[in-house]
């Protein structure tokens, strides 16, 4: 090969040792983006996919037509849930470092996505979360102890020891089980929504995936089927700028926003400041109303930043500047909502510090309780028979035999 290669290779704006550079982010002023009616024609609202819906301005004041109608209590509760998510993450990250659980993934910096969006759905709307949506489980009352027991694969594990940490579920509260396979739940949510429409129900579905995951086939299936059947579904791309080591350009983000992906199928896209809880809520609520009233699917891109490592198996200092998060122009979602509430006079640094302490205590107490149900290395353990159950509704003979063989090897059967 003597000729000069000319394949375009996407390049992040900064690598370790370089200055962070977010000039590529197309930002709008808070309050600047028009809010169309929820029944606006898809074609007429394409601008929403390119601009960035923001409510909170740099002075933490809510601005413009997307400013949602959320009362003080709700906002304080939202702040509490975001902080709780962060405190929970922090605790779990640390117990992983101590070897108590095998793996963990934080949502650091992305808390407004789950909490802000979660507020916009009705309790019977079915949510298909991705692995960084722990906030959805927390806000839908999954119970910290239950979530911790899942991560511990202990005797009270909701998954009966079958899943790695963080793969929660909450059937009662209409939260689907998380998959380790990226994007697979996206078209499933569309199918669920189609089912609701077939049954004549008013419920809608929603799902989440990351910027990197949009390259998967399931993203395309979801958009295509949602478009064809006009399914009542809210599809969300969490653009936290990074997949694992590859920046969002490797998924096509260099050329158009992720919110634009469905335009060619007639699916409205909205790009929103993912670190602005008010904007996140407002945009999601818009999409929820649209879907529920027969307006079909919406694709929302939440622009945010992955504040931590991809997972406890990852070391981001190898591929991005250490201080990138600090330089991220959309800031920290917790800090922004907190300052907004302080500005409004509904909150204070003291109350915040108090709440943080309280939540740390809550999480600490939950952890104490959770480990009392066992850990991977300390009893009580799950009964090993469970490894053979739920493969099918009823256990077939060959699995009974395999189970008994294992029990014999373990000396638990003669």
């Amino acid at each position, binding site marked *: 090969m003597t000729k000069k290669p000319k394949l375009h290779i996407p390049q992040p704006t900064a690598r370790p040792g370089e200055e962070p550079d977010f000039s590529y982010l197309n930002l709008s002023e808070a309050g600047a983006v028009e809010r169309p009616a929820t029944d606006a024609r898809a074609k007429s609202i394409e601008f929403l996919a390119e601009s960035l819906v923001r409510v909170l301005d740099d002075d933490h004041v809510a601005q413009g037509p997307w400013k949602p109608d959320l009362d003080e209590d709700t906002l304080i509760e939202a702040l509490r849930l975001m902080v709780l998510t962060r405190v929970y993450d922090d605790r779990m990250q640390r117990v992983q470092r101590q070897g108590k659980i095998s793996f963990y993934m934080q949502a650091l910096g992305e808390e407004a996505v789950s909490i802000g969006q979660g507020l916009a759905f009705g309790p019977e709307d079915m949510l298909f979360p991705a692995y960084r949506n722990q906030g959805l489980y927390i806000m839908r009352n999954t119970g910290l102890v239950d979530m911790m027991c899942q991560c511990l694969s202990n005797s009270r594990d909701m998954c009966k020891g079958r899943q790695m940490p963080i793969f929660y579920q909450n059937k009662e509260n209409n939260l689907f*089980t998380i998959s380790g396979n990226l994007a697979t739940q996206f078209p499933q949510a569309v199918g669920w929504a189609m*089912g609701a429409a077939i049954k004549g129900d008013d419920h809608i579905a929603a799902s989440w995936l990351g910027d990197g995951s949009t390259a998967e086939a399931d993203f395309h299936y979801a958009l295509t089927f949602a478009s064809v059947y006009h399914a009542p579904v809210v599809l969300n791309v969490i653009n936290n700028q990074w997949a694992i080591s590859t920046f969002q350009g490797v998924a096509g983000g260099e050329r158009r926003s992720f919110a634009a992906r469905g335009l060619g199928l007639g699916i409205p896209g909205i790009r929103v400041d993912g670190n602005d809880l008010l904007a996140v809520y407002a945009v999601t609520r818009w999409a929820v109303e649209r879907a529920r009233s027969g307006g079909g699917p919406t694709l929302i891109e939440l622009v945010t930043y992955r504040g931590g490592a991809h997972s406890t198996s990852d070391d981001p200092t190898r591929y991005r500047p250490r201080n990138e998060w600090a330089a991220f122009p959309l800031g920290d979602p917790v800090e922004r909502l907190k300052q907004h509430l302080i500005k409004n006079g509904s909150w204070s640094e003291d109350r915040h510090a108090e709440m943080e302490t309280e939540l740390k205590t809550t999480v600490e107490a939950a952890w104490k309780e959770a480990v009392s149900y066992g850990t991977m290395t300390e009893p009580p353990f799950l009964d090993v028979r469970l490894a053979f159950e*739920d493969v099918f509704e009823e256990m077939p003979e060959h699995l009974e035999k395999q189970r008994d063989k294992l029990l014999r090897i373990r000396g638990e059967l003669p």
Partner: protein
Amino acid sequence: MSQMNMIQAIRSAHDIMLEKDPSVVAFGQDIGYFGGVFRCTDGLQQKYGEHRVIDAPIAEGGIVATAIGLGINGLRPVVEIQFADYIYPGFDQIVSELSRLRYRSAGDFFAPVTIRTPCGGGIRGGQTHSQSPEGIFTHLSGVKTVMVSNPYDAKGLLISAIESNDPVVFFEPKRIYNGPFDGDPDKPAVSWASHPKGEVPDDYYTVPLGKAEVVEEGEDLTIITYGTIVHVAQAAAKRAGVDAEIIDVRTLMPLDVDTIRDSVNKTGRAMVAHEATRFCGYGAELVATIQKECFWHLEAPISRITGWDTPYPHAFEWQYFPVQKRLADGIRKLMEVA
């Protein structure tokens, strides 16, 4: 009772279940208005409406994925994949989601999806309309796999599959949709009219998942097979003049080991036959199971007669297919082992 071919029997199963259970929906390419390229759902959209019998986009992965979503939402989807050769774009959703959903969620979530798909060759379909990929589904933990060989079973097993809360991959050998095929390509086609299993009850009935059927009793050797080759084996045994016991496995996973063990222990000789390629095909599991269960009774090595380990070649279809003569030769050889 009516005379039905396999297409009519499958349609009847749909019809009954769509009628009986409002949560049943049929979903697939060309299955709605048109009634399917093999006509298995003909007339059903007209009868049950467009929300029960739904034309799908050409995206097997999307079909399986959205069917899972329908299933989670309380519906009972019966999916048609137009040809088994085109099931692979849906493979990830089957392996990673459908088959493991109940397990990973400790029973909280499951999707009772039935995936029907025409398989097998003998219709000059070449490498992309002839495959028998059952062996890659039977390796999965969490889906049941069926291959039918006649109208009676097709209807009864399909109803069982639809009613099952476990996902089922349901193979229909297209070569025998219209009549049994005895593996002699030079003979004219016959219809199901003259076959006892072409007599099908009009009403609801089931054939249980997980049970093989002894379709011929015999003493000299046991042929374990399924799908089209059941008929080939019957003809080949006759041709070889051997008193063969012939087992139609029907449900490939979970396997009815008892029926097979009892037979081989009785005859002492076993042949495993299928149309799929040989290496790591489903027949390998049958052989492995038999050698374990019947080791002390075996008088000869278990023989395998299968498609060759090549793609299905258009021009050499009948050289690829395990035809009657090939089976008959194999039967004779197996009987000669002293």
